[in-house]
């Protein structure tokens, strides 16, 4: 797939630490790209480099095939994690100012702002000072100013922090809408559920290194462990007794008239074999393959990377 934005071998060093070392990402056109990683991994550094707030020490960035340059800032919409508005300034005036800073003419900005204020039903706020708004209201205004100049690349850094569940849904809808309308989105978050829901591709950064990348579906597939959850009744004996010895029984729980259990099959054994082993003894109510959540994958990958680097450090010592 053609990539709309790409960063190649980005390295960024500060006085005492390296924020990014040789990180590359490819963001396909009209997709949502999740930039994941624990705190301090280097996500914000990379996002700032993409926004040209700082420059990389090494590496190159390409925007729609062109080398990234200052003209591109007007095509990028950025909602930073550390965000806010001028407290003493009126909402409408401020939105106009920020839109104009992105190169939108005053008239265009007014027209678009009117549209969005209507859509979010916040017209009444136009002449209010920002400090009079609640945090959630401010976030809505913030979202509008992020997209007001119709950017083709959007960068959301922890977009859902500070929103209530209703607004989170509204925001998700808008993000999906933006993609439908042709925007490419880079999206950094700790909320793994929203990654599964929204992202097409991800890159996982840990301690300045990229440790995992690919499409969400493919990654989850590779992390499958051949584990299944079953619900059954009409059998009260231990499940272990009817399972072949090589099958691993991870969990078994009695819940009213149903028993729930989790079984991991050895590699190469299909789920049909499990079903055939069970059917003569039990009445099967449900049978589901457990696909690891992004959350599990995140924790597992980061822990593994951390212990690896500790081991290698120990080896060096």
């Amino acid at each position, binding site marked *: 797939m053609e990539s709309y934005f790409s960063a190649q071998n980005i390295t960024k060093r*500060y*006085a005492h630490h390296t924020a990014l070392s040789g990180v590359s990402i490819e963001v396909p056109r009209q997709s949502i790209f999740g930039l994941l990683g624990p705190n301090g991994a280097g996500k914000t550094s990379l996002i*700032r480099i993409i*926004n*040209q*707030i*700082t*420059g990389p*020490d090494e590496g190159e960035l390409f925007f729609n095939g062109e080398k990234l340059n*200052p003209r591109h*800032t*007007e095509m*990028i919409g*950025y*909602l*930073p994690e*550390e*965000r*806010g*508005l*001028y*407290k*003493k*300034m009126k909402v409408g005036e401020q939105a106009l*100012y*920020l839109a*104009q*800073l*992105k190169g939108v003419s005053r008239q265009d900005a007014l027209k678009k702002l009117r549209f969005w204020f209507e859509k979010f039903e916040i017209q009444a706020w136009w002449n209010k000072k920002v400090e009079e708004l609640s945090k959630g209201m401010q976030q809505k205004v*913030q979202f509008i*100013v*992020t997209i007001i100049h119709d950017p083709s690349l959007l960068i959301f850094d922890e977009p859902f922090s500070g929103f209530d569940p209703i607004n989170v849904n509204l925001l998700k809808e808008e993000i999906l809408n933006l993609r439908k309308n042709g925007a490419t989105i880079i999206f950094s978050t700790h909320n793994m559920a929203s990654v599964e829901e929204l992202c097409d591709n991800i890159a996982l950064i840990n301690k300045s290194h990229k440790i995992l990348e690919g499409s969400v579906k493919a990654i989850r597939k590779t992390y499958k462990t051949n584990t299944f959850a079953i619900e059954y009744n009409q059998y009260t004996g231990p499940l272990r007794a009817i399972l072949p010895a090589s099958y691993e029984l991870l969990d078994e729980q009695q819940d009213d008239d149903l028993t729930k259990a989790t079984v991991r099959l050895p590699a190469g054994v299909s789920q049909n074999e499990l079903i055939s082993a069970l059917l003569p003894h039990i009445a099967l109510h449900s049978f589901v393959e457990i696909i690891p959540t992004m959350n599990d994958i995140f924790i597992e990958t980061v822990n593994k990377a951390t212990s690896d680097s500790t081991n290698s450090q120990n080896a060096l010592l």
Partner: protein
Amino acid sequence: MNKIFLVIKREYLSRVQKKSFIVMTILGPLLMAGLFIVPVYLAQMSDEMKKIDVLDETGWFMNKFENSSRFNFEYVVEDLETAKENLTTKKGYALLYIPKPSATVPSAAVIYSEKQVSIDLKGYIKTVMAKEVENQKLGAEILKEIRKVNPEYKSFGNDSISKESLISEEILKNIKTNISLTSIQMGEEGKEAKSYTEVSMGVGMFAGILIYFFIFLFGAQVMRGVIEEKVSRIVEVIVSSVKPFQLMMGKIVGVALVGLTQFLLWVVLTLTIVTVFQTIMPGSVEKKSPTEVFSPGTRIPAEASAVTEEAEAVSSSGMSVISEALGSINYGIMIFSFIFYFLAGYLLYGAFFAAIGAAVDNETDTQQFMMPVTIPLILAIVMAQFVINNPEGPVAFWFSIIPFTSPIIMMVRIPFGVPYWQLALSMGLLTVTFIGAVWLAGRVYRTGILMYGKKVTWGEMWKWLFYKA
């Protein structure tokens, strides 16, 4: 580039629309007008009788100085040295010495005193002397005119000819006289130290303090603006649209324009208030109608004005002498320098203030960085008092050349007259320094604004200078 104008516009408009700006704009001129008006009235309120010896070698002004409730003029006939000695032994207030002019009419006088001579006394003396000299000149001119018609005419005495009809614009222009009055303070052992005129001192000190005040006031505004952007977390949104340097310069320039606006409004409003005051207070009006100017000398019947004249002269003299002395200062250089030193000094310190604002998370953390930055400013305002007593000494010279103190000290010196090469050198150095300061501040700023929750040290800021953008 369009974007930096957007930033300037926002910074400017958001400040001039604030209530505090409007209040300051109204209060400032009231205070400044008060500075002009109150001293004059205070001087008049003091009721101590002051004895002034008059040693008039010309004989022109015999009995022209009239005793008032506060001044007692005593004419003496002796040589200057004796008169000076007498002044010391007899505890007189001052000795007015009017030397015989070498060629034409008297135009200079010296006033000796132990203490600074009050400004209204000097004003009164100058007014009386100027009036007398003008009267004499006018008499001569009128006589000339009359003789053209009637060569036999010897002197005034009959009023068959209306003198007013003979006074032309040209004559009035010819007779305009400027009296220079030097005041010399006599020291403890009779040493004479030349004292500069109070007005130059006043103007110099006032300009210096105003610069100091403006740098602090508007520099702090820049700093607060930067902290506000950092605290409200809007800065990252903005720097994704404009370069941090543009944001910083936009803010500094925007605030500078606010300062200029405020200054110009102050000047206009102060002048308005003083003018209005002079118009509505009858005693303060500087009347220059011909009848009044020459009435006592030519004895043209104008009793009404003659009676009130002297009283008026005393009360108006304080005011008129200030405007007169203010008129003697080179306004072109004064205003140009003020605007230059205000802008350059402000840019120099404003850049530092912006960098400090960027380095900290809240205003309370600014203290440790503010101290070293403000020390030169405070030093300058302290030194200003020495400089004003010796505006040509080495202290004055060096402090008005060194960029960190020059905006204040040079403004203090300018009313006394400063050689152009010194002015040029000082301005040149200041320009180079503020460009350097803005460059350094820009480097600290762009790193600082994105740095949160970190106690920043000087060493840390030093490192920021070398980060790649």
